[in-house]
């Protein structure tokens, strides 16, 4: 690179590369991301102030490869896509070095080896411009707000689903399923004796215990069954009674000596 202390920040709003050239050969890069190899190529062509219809292929290829080398040195994973274009550049470069086929007719048009790449770049750049247009539109839209929630919305707490939602939801269910199974396996089973001890401690510490709340704190069916048997056992053998303060109210386990 020629410019000393050159600063270049690319295109719209720091979305891509910021380049700081430090000395003659050493590039010090602060890399954002190039949107892809074509993006990088366009950038290099612009940088060289070259005509896109007459790309100085040797120079651009060197710079492109140099760029990839630097990315590698900086440990930035160079995607295969960058290498594909690199290979294409090298191929074009070598084809341009070939002498003209002497057998070819004088007036026969020889296709420029660069043509395919140029076409691709031109096509790509249209979409890049379209992306910029979308960017500007969304910036404007970000300044526009819809109304807040009103009463009638509340009846409609629902989602507008797409096929993608159906699939992702289904995958989530399957994942949830797997987690549940795992939890079940890893949990240590609590014995009936332990459950009775546990229950007794809690009843006599507080004087009473809400059964429904206790049951809800249990996580597996097995625990629930054990707890149920434990409750029956305690009521039968200990000075604990079952009590319901009014019809349909929660059932309380109450220690008899505590008033």
């Amino acid at each position, binding site marked *: 690179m020629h410019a000393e202390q050159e600063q270049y920040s690319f295109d719209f709003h720091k979305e891509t590369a910021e380049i700081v050239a430090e000395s003659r050969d050493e590039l010090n890069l602060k890399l954002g991301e190039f949107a892809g190899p074509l993006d990088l190529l366009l950038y290099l062509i612009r940088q060289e102030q070259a005509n896109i219809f007459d790309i100085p292929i040797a120079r651009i290829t060197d710079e492109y490869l140099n760029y990839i080398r630097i990315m590698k040195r900086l440990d930035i994973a160079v995607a295969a896509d960058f290498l594909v274009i690199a290979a294409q550049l090298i191929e074009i470069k070598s084809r341009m070095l070939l002498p003209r086929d002497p057998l070819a007719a004088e007036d026969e048009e020889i296709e420029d080896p660069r043509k395919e790449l140029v076409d691709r770049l031109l096509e790509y750049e249209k979409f890049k411009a379209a992306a910029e247009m979308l960017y500007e539109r969304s910036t404007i839209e970000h300044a526009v707000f819809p109304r*807040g929630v009103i009463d009638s919305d509340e009846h*409609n*707490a*629902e989602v507008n*689903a797409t096929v993608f939602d*159906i*699939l992702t939801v289904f995958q989530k*269910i*399957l994942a949830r399923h797997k987690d549940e199974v795992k939890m079940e396996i890893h949990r240590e089973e609590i014995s009936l004796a332990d459950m009775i001890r546990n229950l007794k401690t809690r009843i006599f510490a507080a004087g009473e215990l809400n059964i429904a709340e206790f049951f809800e704190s249990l996580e597996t069916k097995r625990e629930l069954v054990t707890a149920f048997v434990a409750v029956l056992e305690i009521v039968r053998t200990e000075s604990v009674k079952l009590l319901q303060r009014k019809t349909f109210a929660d059932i309380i386990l109450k220690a008899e000596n505590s008033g």
Partner: protein
Amino acid sequence: MAETIEIIEETVETVEEKQPREVADLSRAVEALIFVADEPISTRALADVLEEERDLIDSVVEELAESYEERRGGLQIRQIAGGWQISTRTEVHEDVRRLLKSRPSAKLSLAALETLAVIAYKQPVTVPEILEIRGVQSASAIKTLLEKRLIVTKGHKETVGRPMQYGTSKEFLIHFGLKDLSDLPSIEDFEDLVSPLT
């Protein structure tokens, strides 16, 4: 059509002080704020956001509410629950009700969506099987889906109790833009997307 009262001094441009805002400008802001707020918004909250005196904001809102009255459109600005709110006028409530009722709710609750996903990918499937996969009862979700015609019954399964089987309907395909069931995306279709690229 609120009158504009010019109170900007053009001389104090060098001073850092905040320029007082025009009333028309404030009225615009107030209208927008009442509109976007999720709940009735108090004069105080409005004044805080706009960094203006409460009295000033009070008169701005009053005037705004009055201009809504004068216009006699479909909306009104009302003072309610200690705040201001934009709502529809009572005159139009029949139309509004008809809209809310007619709204072809293509939308689904999460429970319904989950149930639909299971049915779509596991069809034909029975209620116990759905329970097994989702881990929760899906009765009301199934009812909703049947009502919306997104699923249909697919005959009884020849096992104990002969439970009813469910599958997706033609409406399901139309609704989700699918040619046929083979058009449903599979996990493989999105596999590449979920690769550790990010």
